[in-house]
C-alpha cells in the first residue's frame, strides 16, 4: 500500500521574533510532516511555538529559516499575490474566538471565502445555506453571531472553513471556549465533515479531552517537536 501523499512538510523551520530589545526564538528547527487525510494535533505548553507553527503552515507568517512546503509548494518563495490566492483556495481557518464578522449573519459569514475567491454573492450565500445545513444550523442561517451560542458560532466557523473545499484546515484551540459536550460535538463534526482523504487537519489544542480524535499528536516544547505519537494515544500533559 502506498503511503498517503504529504500535505505539509517542514524541515528545520526557524522563526525568531525581534521585539526590539530582545529576540525570542519561537520555532527552533521544527521538522514535521502531515499526510493528506490526517488529523494532526499540536500540543504543548503556552509559548512553545504551536501557534507560530500553524501560522507558518497556513502561509500567514514567514519563517526566518528552514523550509516549509504545503501541497508541494514552497510558501516562503511565493509572491505575495500567489500566496494570497494559495491561501484563499487551499486553507480553511477555525479560531478559538470564532472570529466571525459580527455584522454579518451566519450565511453571510460562511459565504466570505467564496466571495474572496470571486464567486457572486448570491451564489455564495446559497451555497453557504447548504453548508450550514450540513453542520446542523439550517434553521439559523439569518442569525447574527451575537444571537448564537458558543457551540453554534464554532459550527458556523467550521462551515466557513469548509465552504470553499480547502485542502488544509488549521484550527487554533477550537474547543477551548466550549464546554465538554459542545467541544466533543464540534470535534465529531470536524472529523465527520471536514476530514477526508484529500484534506488534512492541523489542530492546536491544550484540551486533553479531544486528543482521542487525533490520528497523530505532535508534542512541542521550546520551539521544537519533542515527540510525535500515533493514533489513539493520549499525549502527556
Amino acid at each position: 500500500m502506498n503511503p498517503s501523499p504529504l500535505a505539509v512538510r517542514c524541515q528545520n523551520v526557524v522563526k525568531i521574533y525581534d521585539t526590539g530589545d530582545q529576540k525570542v526564538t519561537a520555532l527552533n528547527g521544527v521538522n514535521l510532516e502531515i499526510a493528506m487525510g490526517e488529523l494532526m494535533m499540536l500540543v504543548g505548553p503556552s509559548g512553545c511555538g504551536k501557534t507560530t507553527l500553524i501560522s507558518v503552515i497556513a502561509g500567514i507568517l514567514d519563517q526566518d529559516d528552514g523550509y516549509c512546503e504545503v501541497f508541494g509548494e514552497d510558501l516562503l518563495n511565493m509572491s505575495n499575490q500567489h500566496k494570497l490566492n494559495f491561501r484563499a483556495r487551499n486553507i480553511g481557518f477555525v479560531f478559538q474566538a470564532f472570529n466571525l464578522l459580527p455584522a454579518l449573519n451566519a450565511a453571510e459569514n460562511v459565504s466570505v471565502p467564496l466571495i474572496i475567491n470571486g464567486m457572486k454573492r448570491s451564489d455564495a450565500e446559497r451555497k453557504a445555506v447548504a453548508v450550514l445545513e450540513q453542520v446542523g444550523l439550517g434553521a439559523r442561517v439569518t442569525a447574527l453571531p451575537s444571537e448564537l451560542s458558543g457551540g453554534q458560532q464554532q459550527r458556523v466557523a467550521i462551515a466557513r472553513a469548509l465552504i470553499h473545499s480547502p485542502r488544509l484546515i488549521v484550527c487554533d484551540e477550537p474547543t477551548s471556549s466550549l464546554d465538554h459536550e459542545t467541544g466533543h460535538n464540534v470535534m465529531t463534526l470536524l472529523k465527520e465533515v471536514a476530514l477526508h482523504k484529500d484534506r488534512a487537519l492541523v489542530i492546536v489544542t491544550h484540551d486533553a479531552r479531544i486528543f482521542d480524535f487525533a490520528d497523530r499528536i505532535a508534542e512541542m516544547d521550546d520551539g521544537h517537536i519533542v515527540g510525535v505519537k500515533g493514533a489513539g494515544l493520549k499525549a502527556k500533559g
Partner: protein
Amino acid sequence: MNHIAIKMLMGDRGKYLGIVMGLTFASLIMTQQPAIFLGLMSRSYSFISDVGLPDIWVMDEKVQFVDDIKPLQDTELYRVRGISGVEWAMPMYKGLLKARLADGTFQTCNVVGLDDATLIGGPPVMLEGSIEDLRRSDGIIVDIDGARDKLGKPTPGGERIPLKIGDSVELNDHRAIVVGIAKVTRTFQSQPVVYTTYSRAKNYAPKERKLLSFVLVKAKPGQDLAELTRRIRATTGLAAYTGEAFKTLTYEYFMHNTGIPINFGISVLLGFIVGAAIAGQTFYNSTLENLRQFGVLKAMGTSNWVLLRMILLQAVLVGTIGYGLGVGLTALFGYSMRNSILAFKFPWQLLMFSGAGVSLICIFAALLSIIKVIRLEPAIVFKG
C-alpha cells in the same frame, strides 16, 4: 466585498452615527459660515448691483469703496459728458442723512439722489407706486425693509407701523413724502434706503460746495469699456470703474480692512479641525476595533488592495452622507432665514469648497486606517 465593508461600517450603530455626525457638523460649519460671509460681502456692493444700467462709475480717485463718498463738483459731470465714447452721463448723489421719526428719534438713512430728468439709478423693483412719482413734490421712495422697521412709526407698545405711501418724514429738517415703496438688496450697514431726485437730495443734504457723489456713464454701442475708463481717467483725473471693477474694489476693501474674513475664516477652520478630529478619530477607532476582522479577511486571502477599497468605500459612504446632511442643513438654515436680516449667499462654488473640505477629512481618516490595515500581520488572528 463591498457589502461586507458597508455592514462592517454600520455594524456598530453608535460609532457609525458618531462618524456621520462629525462629518455633518464639519460640512455644516464649512458651508454655513462661508455662506453668511459671502452674503455679508455681497451686501458690501449690493448698491452697485442694484444700479444696473450704467457701464461705468466715475468718482473721486481717492474713493476706496461704494460708501466711501468723496464728493465732486457738478462741473465734473459736464467734463465726462464731453468725452468721446460716452453715450450719456448722469449725476448721482449718495450720502447718509438723518431722518426724524414721528416719536422724535432720529434714524440715519442712505439717501440716493437720481438725475431729475431720467431718474437713472433708481431702485431695481418697485413694490408700490412708480419711479416717476419721484417727480411729485417732496417725493421720496423708501425701501420696504426700512419702511417696515427702522423708519416705521413707533407705537406705545413698542411695535412699529410701517411707512406707507402718503406718510411724511423729516429729512434734515426738510419735509419728505413717501410716494413709493421699493425692494432693494440689503446693504452692509442695513440702513434704510431713500430715493429722491438729485436736486432734492442736494436740498436735503447739508450745504457743501461739492455734492456730486458719482457720475454714471453709459458707453456708446461697441465702445470698449476698458478703453473708455482709461480715457475718462486720463481726461478728468477722476477714478473710473466698470460695475464689476467697482464691486471688486469695494469687496477687496472689506476683505483687507475689516476683521470679517479672519473671523469667518477662524470659524471655518475650527469647523474643519473639530470635524476632522471627531470623524477622523471615530473612523480610525472603528477600524482599530475591526482590526481582527480585517486580519481574518487577510488570512483568508483578501488582498491589501481589496481591503483598501473597502476602507475607501466606507469613507466615501460616511463622507457623502455627512456632507449631504451638512449641506442640507445649511440650505434649510438659509431658507428659514430668507426673510430675516441675516446675510446668506449659497453659490455652487461653496458646495465645491465644503465638499473638498469633507473629502480632505475623509481622506485623512481613511489614510490612517489604511496604513494600519496594510501593515497588519494576518497572524494576529491567532492571538487570543
